[in-house]
């Protein structure tokens, strides 16, 4: 059944996989970051295609606006421009390749053999529902998790600051 939605899906898929692959193979680190960015955008588009606009937005804001930027900053911090990334060991490449193919095969086989029966219920992707659930403390609520993540982010922040903090002159 070919329709525009389907075609879009396959295109997006190809897009994100291709850029993903490029991101992990290119020897220019800056390019790798850009290809990653594209790949993540691909994922975000996939969410759009699934009618999950809010998730797509989060994906773009957090990933593209946050993480990738962070990565690029750290590349600036640690990398001398123009240098190629060091080559991986050939043996490791081969082994990794084999393992990945094996894993893909194994998981793929299980997935293929599994009969998925799509549910007829319509997925409620209303922002309101999501928002309600996010802060509900009932059985379907995620308030506790939400709080937990906030603590986690706090802890991560403290950790980052302490670690990345340059030594103050008196202590060095």
């Amino acid at each position, binding site marked *: 059944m070919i329709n525009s939605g389907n075609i879009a899906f396959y295109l997006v898929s190809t897009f994100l996989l291709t850029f993903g692959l490029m991101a992990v193979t290119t020897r220019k680190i800056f390019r790798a970051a850009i290809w990653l960015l594209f790949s993540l955008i691909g994922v975000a588009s996939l969410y759009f295609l699934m009618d999950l606009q809010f998730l797509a937005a989060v994906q773009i804001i957090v990933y593209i606006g946050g993480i990738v930027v962070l990565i690029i900053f750290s590349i600036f911090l640690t990398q001398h421009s123009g240098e190629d990334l060091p080559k991986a060991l050939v043996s490791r490449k081969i082994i990794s390749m084999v393992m990945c193919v094996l894993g893909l095969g194994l998981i793929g086989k299980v997935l293929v053999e599994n009969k998925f029966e799509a549910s007829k219920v319509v997925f409620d992707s209303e922002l309101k529902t*999501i928002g309600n659930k996010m802060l509900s403390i009932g059985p379907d609520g995620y308030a506790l998790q939400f709080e937990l993540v906030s603590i986690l982010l706090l802890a991560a922040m403290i950790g980052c600051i302490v670690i990345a903090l340059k030594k103050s002159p008196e202590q060095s």
Partner: protein
Amino acid sequence: MNNVPLIHILFVSTALFFIGVYGFFTRRNLITMLMSVELILNSVNINFVAFNKYLHPENHDGLFFSFFIIAIAAAEAAVAIAIIINLYRSHRSIDVEDANELKL
């Protein structure tokens, strides 16, 4: 895209997963390894969302999982980058092969 078989979406996510894994295994630069982790997490996100939307639309667990994974990914990336920067300070390199004093 409601007609796309679920298995195709899953295949895409699994493939992305192993692309990430491959990168994680072969990239010697720590930052690129971190990028690979992001790819892996994204593939998992796709999984969750796809399962939620196609198989279990009556709840939002998968969706929320994705939200939280994104948050965690951010936190993890932040801490990892802090560590990498610290490592860079002491090793003057972020090649993972250079950081193997601890072994045997």
